[in-house]
């Protein structure tokens, strides 16, 4: 049965909404395939606005991996803004993909990538607009299998009523295995219906089907245990790890939107995983071990990507890019190759202690000089020991001094507020650090126009981290510390006027905390918030704290728990956490020991250059650290072209 495009129905609505271009598709390198020729059809969703979702690397990789399969079709869908949602309801236009404007309901699978928990209400909007029952239990064979992925899927319990399955970890191989199972089940004539395909997925051990597990609670509200409620379903579900990044050079043909997006650059992931061991960082904990892409693999991806996209900036992505074992050779090689082509390089995440000015100069040699950004995360040496982010203020001042001497004028510093054991004084140290940056900059440059921007985010304890047991700081305390910090910055006008301060208030962080460490009972809260109009909770103009607080009260009070119980309550060592049956490889005893080390202000080194400290991931997952140096070099050394990274001999006469 073929499927009609909804574009003719959508088009007349577009002149009436803001930024209509985000709904028309037509991106460079997008793929539209024959519906009837496909055996398995995926709709991939990033549950936020198009401008945020389009550049998402996870969706882009899976889109390309799936579409490379001859009998598989993958299209993308994003959250529509409330103005279009209203018109779509009025004119009966269903949730659609942007590739061929096909209705999402017609696909076999709907894969949703959750980078943040604040996209949960957008999932409900999409399901509802698609005509898919909100609750997985109400779906039939005619509805897509809804699969959650992304970092938030490491605790999918809060959205367990709405998703059929969740996959933990790297998706490249997992999507193909799921596709194989669905293809076979369809070819056999769908034996056993929806239950059977979900059971087949679950018995692989790498796909979590929440419905196949029962959660039992203790009288005080804590979880007693989580157990499978049928045969063929394992007790624990493991995360997926793609080991050889050079074997998965995706995206090969990155999507380039017509509309403006949040990342106007071509990204190449230079390694995956991080073992620096920052205790607040969920990404660093759940993506272990470190797996580097080789210098040659990176070089080939950059050239192919530039030819395919025309971007002027290449982002060398990872959780801490300057930590690549051959970062100096990579940046020098790329800067040589793209000399004169106006192609700049950027390292979106760099640690102060791994950064040097040679690196900075290579980055800005062929294009725009971007600002310098570092993330000390904590203002005082003490709190940096607690969070295990061991960069010293001396390192920072040395690095920024060299940068200011070399002509940079601006530095941006990221911090967190509300960290475990934090006091007012730890936060006030941020002001001192920023002032020292200004002083050092003025001294080495002899100029007055040095700027330092401090950007402060609220800390949210995350599952699968040593801080998963921590009490989240309440918004009142966070807001009061930020106020005091602002006063401290402004106390000395001569320095303060060159310091910019950016922060959000503490309320959204508390809700993110509820969704991060919540269990199945939070599903009711999400649904109520959505029914009362909650949309785009990651956007301050749409987020309503009051709506979340009142929904939590209405839904949780009858169950004997509340918002504070899920957020500001410190957990005990032996409490069963909602995600304990989901295996990130991290040993729970090691996490607890690391949490105790945090409270004792004890540091933990990186296993790439010190002996293994038994976090548990490698033996549990059968993985190992994959790092260089390889000693190889980037070819060709000669510049590629004039005014463009592509050489086209047919143009010149």
């Amino acid at each position: 049965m073929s499927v009609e495009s909804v574009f003719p129905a959508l088009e007349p609505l577009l002149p009436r909404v803001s930024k209509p271009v985000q709904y028309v598709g037509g991106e460079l390198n997008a793929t539209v395939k024959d519906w009837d020729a496909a055996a398995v059809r995926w709709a991939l969703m990033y549950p936020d606005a198009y401008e945020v979702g389009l550049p998402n690397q996870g969706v882009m990789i899976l889109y390309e991996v799936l579409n490379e399969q001859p009998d598989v079709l993958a299209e993308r869908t994003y959250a529509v803004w409330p103005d279009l949602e209203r018109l779509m309801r009025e004119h009966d236009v269903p949730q659609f993909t942007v590739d061929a404007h096909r209705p999402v309901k017609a696909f076999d699978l709907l894969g949703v990538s959750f980078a943040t928990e604040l996209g949960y209400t957008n999932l409900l909007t999409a399901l509802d607009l698609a005509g898919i029952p909100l609750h997985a239990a109400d779906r039939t064979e005619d509805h897509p299998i809804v699969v959650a992925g992304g970092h938030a899927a490491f605790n999918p319990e809060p959205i367990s009523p709405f998703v059929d399955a969740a996959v933990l970890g790297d998706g490249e191989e997992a999507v193909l295995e799921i596709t194989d199972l669905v293809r076979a089940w369809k070819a056999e004539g769908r034996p056993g219906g929806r239950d059977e395909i979900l059971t087949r997925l679950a018995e692989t051990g790498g796909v979590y089907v929440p419905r196949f597990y029962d959660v039992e609670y203790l009288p005080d509200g804590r979880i007693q245990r989580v157990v499978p409620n049928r045969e063929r379903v394992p007790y624990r579900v493991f995360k997926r790890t793609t080991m050889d990044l050079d074997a998965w050079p995706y995206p090969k043909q990155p999507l380039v939107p017509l509309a403006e997006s949040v990342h106007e650059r071509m990204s190449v992931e230079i390694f995956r995983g991080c073992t620096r061991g920052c205790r607040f960082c969920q990404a660093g904990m759940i993506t272990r071990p470190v797996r580097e892409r080789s210098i040659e693999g990176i070089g080939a991806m950059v050239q192919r990507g530039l030819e395919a996209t025309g971007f002027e900036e290449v982002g060398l992505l990872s959780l801490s890019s300057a930590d690549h074992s051959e970062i100096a050779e990579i940046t020098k090689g790329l800067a040589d190759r793209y000399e004169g082509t106006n192609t700049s390089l950027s390292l979106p995440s760099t640690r102060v202690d791994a950064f040097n000015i040679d690196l900075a100069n290579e980055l800005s040699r062929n294009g725009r000089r971007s600002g310098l950004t570092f993330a000390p995360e904590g203002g005082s040496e003490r709190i940096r020991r607690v969070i295990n982010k061991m960069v010293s203020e001396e390192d920072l001042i040395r690095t920024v001094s060299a940068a200011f001497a070399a002509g940079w004028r601006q530095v941006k510093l990221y911090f967190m507020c509300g960290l475990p054991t934090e006091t007012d004084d730890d936060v006030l140290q941020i002001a001192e650090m920023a002032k020292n940056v200004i002083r050092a900059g003025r001294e080495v440059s002899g100029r007055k126009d040095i700027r330092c921007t401090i950007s402060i985010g609220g800390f949210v304890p995350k599952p699968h981290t040593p801080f998963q047991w921590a009490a989240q700081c309440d918004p009142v305390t966070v807001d009061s510390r930020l106020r005091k910090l602002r006063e401290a910055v402004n106390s000395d006008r001569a320095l303060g006027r060159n310091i910019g301060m950016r922060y959000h208030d503490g309320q959204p962080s508390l809700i993110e905390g509820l969704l991060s460490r919540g269990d199945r009972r939070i599903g009711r809260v999400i649904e109520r918030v959505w029914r009362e109009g909650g949309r785009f909770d990651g956007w301050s103009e749409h987020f309503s704290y009051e709506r979340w607080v009142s929904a939590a009260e209405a839904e949780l009070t009858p169950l004997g728990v509340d918002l504070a119980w899920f957020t500001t309550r410190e957990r005990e060592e032996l409490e069963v956490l909602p995600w304990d049956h989901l295996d990130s490889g991290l040993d729970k005893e090691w996490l607890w020991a690391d949490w105790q080390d945090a409270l004792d202000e004890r540091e933990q080194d990186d296993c790439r250059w010190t002996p293994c400290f038994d976090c548990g991931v490698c033996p549990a997952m059968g993985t190992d650290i994959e790092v260089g140096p390889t000693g190889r070099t980037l070819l060709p050394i000669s510049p590629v072209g004039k005014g463009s990274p592509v050489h086209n001999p047919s143009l010149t006469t």
Partner: protein
Amino acid sequence: MQKLRLRYAKRGRLRFTSHRDIARTFERALRRAGVPMAYSQGFSPHPKVSWVGAAPTGVASEAEYVEVQVVEQVDPDALRTALDAVLPPGLDVIEVVRAAGGTLPERIEASAWQVELPGVSPERLIEAVTAFLAAESVEVERLTKDGKKVIDVRPAVVSAEVRSDVPTGSGSTQIQMHSSDAGHDARDLSHPCGILVTVVRQTTPTVRPDDVLSALRVVADLVPPVPAKATRMAQGRLDDEGRLVDPLALDRAAEEV
């Protein structure tokens, strides 16, 4: 250093792009095509691309113009082919010429627009256009960033006429044959569709096709049941008979000498 002038079309669903979207897409396509672009100097170098008054968001065009500077001699036909190959469907390069002096803006003073009004009968449209042309002044309100603004549409309109369908050889039929995004250019023929063809002078403030439609509402209470589709068909200077002169004609003539 060489200057080239391009005429391109914005078709199909790409009519929903803004000028900024087009500019970004164009600059990236120039890089993908391997065009040896000239860059501005300084802290934040930009490729040397000069735009001439772009069609508004939501409006298609058969006649947009842009000038680019390159650092090596480039063959115009090869550039047209190479660039067209890497632009997304719906952005089509129609012609490339070497610039022979003068500037593009001085060769452009008016646009011809074709506005399709599905659900509006040609008779009804003729009635409204006749009323509009008979008026000396037709003021409409437009919402801008700074609030409501009143503009007089009538003086900018050089001519306006109604067609029930477009003659063979020009207009939509031709667009559909040549568009690289033909699937998104199809017209719904199940309803009557009045077609307005109007030449509008580029004044300040600019009078856009939707302002002309607002004027028809003011003079004749004409409200299209579904949003109209407008396409810019040509741009240029007005000759003595009120026809548009192709802005690239002088460059083409210089080439032939």
